């Protein structure tokens, strides 16, 4: 990361190689459209390149930083209503539609990690999983979710917080 911050394109290429797949997958999961997901990934990585000096190691890992930027870009796209109905497209089968990378130990580890996080998410009460997924992956605001699910805004916010708390505890238990 130090070399990326110094403006070394080769180091940035390595950073892209390491996190590009996860970033594209996240964008695709959110917008459900390949072209828009490419645009979001490209915008996000250009933004990362241009703001590379702002990365602070003590605020979290490079991966968390990169995926956070991709998430914000995808939320922007969703809220600009760029993807309309495509946003409801499911990410099921994405791995079959786009050829999976070679099964290196790193990739295998990430797939295992993905399975563990999905299991923890699915382990939450359904109503908590639903509000978390609609907000994080769907880009919907709390008031939109309240309207969709026909429940008070306070209930939506409460379920978000409870769900995150339970997810945190569950993941901490797995890691321990």
């Amino acid at each position, binding site marked *: 990361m130090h070399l990326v911050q110094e*403006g*070394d*394109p080769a180091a*940035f*290429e390595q950073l*892209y190689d390491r996190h*590009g*797949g*996860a*970033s*594209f*997958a*996240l964008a*695709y999961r959110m917008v459900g459209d390949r*072209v828009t997901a*490419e*645009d979001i*990934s*490209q*915008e996000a*990585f*250009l933004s990362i*390149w241009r703001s590379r000096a702002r990365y602070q190691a003590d605020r*979290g890992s490079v991966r*968390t930083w990169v*995926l*956070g930027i991709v*998430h914000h870009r995808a*939320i922007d796209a969703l809220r600009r209503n760029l993807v309309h109905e495509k946003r409801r497209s499911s*990410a099921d089968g*994405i*791995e079959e539609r*786009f050829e*999976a990378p070679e099964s290196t130990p790193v*990739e295998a580890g*990430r*797939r295992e*990690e*993905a399975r563990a*996080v999905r299991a923890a*998410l699915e382990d939450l009460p359904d109503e908590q999983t639903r509000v*978390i997924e609609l*907000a*994080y*992956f769907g880009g*919907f605001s*709390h008031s939109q979710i309240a309207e969709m699910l026909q429940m008070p805004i*306070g209930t*939506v916010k*409460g*379920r*978000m*917080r409870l*769900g*995150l*708390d339970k*997810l*945190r505890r569950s*993941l*901490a238990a797995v890691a321990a």
Partner: protein
Amino acid sequence: MSVERHHSQEENVGAYLLSALTEIETRAFEKHLEECPVCRDEIDRLRPAVDALPRSVSPVSAPPSLKQSLMAVVSEEAREARGEPRGEGFARRMREKLAGLSGSMAGMQPGVAGAVASVVLLAGIVAGGAGVYAVTQASDDGGSGGGSRIVAAKVDKTEVPLASGSLVLSDRTKDGAVLRVHGLPTLDSKSTYQVWLHRDGEVISQSLFSVGEDGEGAAAVTDDVENAQAVMITREPAGGARAPSEKPVLSVRL
């Protein structure tokens, strides 16, 4: 900070972390965070759960064109950051490419200080038939006036699935711009790629170009791009057309 204010904001912790607050609510909550250690601690406590959410998505291979397009922009910006004149890296690469194609280009020099960018249209010998390369010879203003801007192109993936491109705009919009493409299919000798500028409701022809066997090419946008809406590429009969005859295969919105 009042207890009431804390209670009114406390319930927003989860929604804030999930980006589910409106912009106004987000600003209000962030202001509250500045003065509320309890909510700050709660944010820190729950953040690992939110950071884990993107990791629930299995990584996949991103399309190769995404990396090509991204690294083209990054390499260009890195060159500029090293102090090379705007567009010089690109112009040099194009000169090198052209030198490889035609010995007559080997002595081409960069623009002189203060010179307005000139457009040199060269008949290039490209694989698959004769074509025209359009090269903008970058102006050198001694580094004053800031850097160039690079805008990524949108590609019609159904027509040209492997293509990517970007437009390099000078600060001085009158100098026009350079459109770079990668992964475009080569055309037969009866066809050419044509660049158009969409401005003030008009679509104005800019230049014709071909791509090499590697799918790389570049073309000049010779008109002032100020107030233009888009730059586009279409496939046209050799010699070009008076107006686009098909939907653009690649476009850059300005």
